């Protein structure tokens, strides 16, 4: 089925735990990762939406960015580190609240997306001047090299490969995590807080990649196995593999870098213009600003849209999208079966004139043109906790 690469695969601190839980392991971004456990993708997906799923996302890149231009602590230090990262991303970081988190993208000079990432500002006064970044596993080396090259004289980058990242996602996540880490249930969506867990420093953000309420918990590698087992001891927590992680984010309308976003696609085309701050739209000052500001004003030529095939056949990545008249207009970038909607779900790019909700299109699956429709994303409503 799968071919073995020549270089040995990297392992997360939870590798042994995955094996003991009966995981089926696959290569992902150079890591040996669980694609599913004994329950299988379908049950894991539905369990996450019903209760709580635990995901090992330690392959993702975690890093601290600290200003060199100002002593740590205080507003000046924050303005300095925010000014630096804003050279690479279009998000509003300067005015990001203490303890707040933002989704954004690294851009190239043509306004294409080099990666998407999470940026968090510490709550603590003495940590101002620091930002906590989480980037994609497959892109982390490139992202960190970009930061060092472009911002090296302004910031220090500390890659946190001594930390694991565990996501707990689902409607029961807050109640369960609160038992182990008191205080987390008071956090709202897109916030970051630090906690002490028996001497281990945790960094907890209320965010995730499923559309559900939930958390991502950064924990020192040495305590990761113990922490994961503590969560898994709760009867409502099940381990969830990469298979269900993908179907969950697909239903939630969230992009997978390298598939739904790449270095040619702008964040406006990618339908993630919320990653561009209001002040930044007026001031520019980020790579590719000219194209992005123009697209914001005039509308993009093509747009990422949600697509629902009418029948039961899943339309996967690479499937051609045809207009009702039969002309090729685009391609599916992510698609498969959505267990919660109990049917096929997809997303892809179409010219703006075909992007309106309700537009009929056709999908070429195994040589047959199957009827489909442009739909609003997400197809499963987000259930974030906004307080």
């Amino acid at each position, binding site marked *: 089925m799968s071919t073995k690469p020549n270089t040995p695969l990297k392992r997360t601190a939870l590798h042994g735990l995955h094996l003991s839980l009966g995981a089926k392991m696959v290569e992902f971004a150079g890591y040996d990762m669980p694609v599913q456990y004994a329950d*299988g*993708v*379908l049950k894991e997906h539905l369990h996450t939406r019903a209760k709580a799923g635990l995901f090992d996302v330690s392959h993702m890149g975690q890093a601290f960015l600290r200003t060199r231009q100002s002593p740590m602590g205080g507003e000046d230090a924050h303005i300095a580190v925010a000014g630096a990262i804003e050279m690479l991303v279009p998000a509003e970081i300067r005015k990001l609240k203490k303890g707040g988190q933002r989704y954004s993208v690294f851009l190239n000079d043509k306004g294409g997306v080099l990666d998407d990432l999470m940026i968090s500002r510490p709550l603590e006064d003495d940590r101002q001047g620091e930002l906590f970044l989480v980037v994609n596993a497959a892109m982390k080396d490139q992202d960190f090299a970009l930061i060092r090259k472009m911002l090296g004289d302004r910031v220090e980058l500390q890659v946190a490969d001594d930390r694991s990242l565990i996501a707990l996602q689902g409607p029961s996540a807050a109640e369960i995590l609160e038992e182990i880490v008191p205080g987390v249930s008071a956090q709202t969506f897109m916030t970051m807080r630090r906690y002490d867990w028996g001497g281990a420093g945790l960094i907890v953000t209320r965010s995730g990649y499923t559309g559900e309420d939930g958390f991502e918990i950064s924990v020192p590698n040495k305590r990761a196995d113990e922490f994961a087992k503590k969560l898994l001891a709760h009867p409502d927590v099940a381990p969830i593999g990469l*298979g269900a992680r993908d*179907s969950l984010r697909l239903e939630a309308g969230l992009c997978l870098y390298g598939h739904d976003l790449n270095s040619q696609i702008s964040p406006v085309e990618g339908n993630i213009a919320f990653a561009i701050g209001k002040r930044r739209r007026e001031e520019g000052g980020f790579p590719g600003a000219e194209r992005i500001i123009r697209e914001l004003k005039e509308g993009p030529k093509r747009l990422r849209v949600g697509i629902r095939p009418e029948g*039961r056949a*899943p339309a*996967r990545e690479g499937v051609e999208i045809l207009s009702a008249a039969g002309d090729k207009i685009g391609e599916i970038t992510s698609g498969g*079966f959505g*267990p919660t909607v109990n049917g096929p779900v997809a997303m892809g790019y179409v010219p703006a004139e075909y992007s309106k909700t309700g537009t009929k299109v056709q999908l070429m699956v195994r040589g047959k043109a199957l009827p489909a429709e442009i739909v609003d994303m997400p197809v499963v409503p987000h259930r974030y906790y906004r307080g």
Partner: protein
Amino acid sequence: MTVRYTKDHEWVRMDGDVAVVGITAHAAEQLGDVVFVELPSKGASFKQHADMAVVESVKAASDVFAPISGEIVDVNTAIVDDPARVNADPAGEAWFVKMKPADPAEFDGLMDEAAYNAFTENA
């Protein structure tokens, strides 16, 4: 009742002069939760090894190949309506098609159960 197997993980069972075809428990297990099945039309003819059906799990799509040459005389629409049956009973209730064999020698040339088990263990 004699059942024979292919390297592509189909099984064939002769039921009188009709060949009943499905996918093996090993294949169903490897695929994971089956969410979509596409079957050929009754009356269609296939050469041995030609792709004749599609089975998709949450993870991926796979072709199902004709284990022998012949004409499709019946298809199991129950697995199209409820694809999860393929995981529940791949060797029994969740058969895919019935074929009229074109060449009985093809059936005899397939693996028996012991050979198939050895094949999957070494794969």
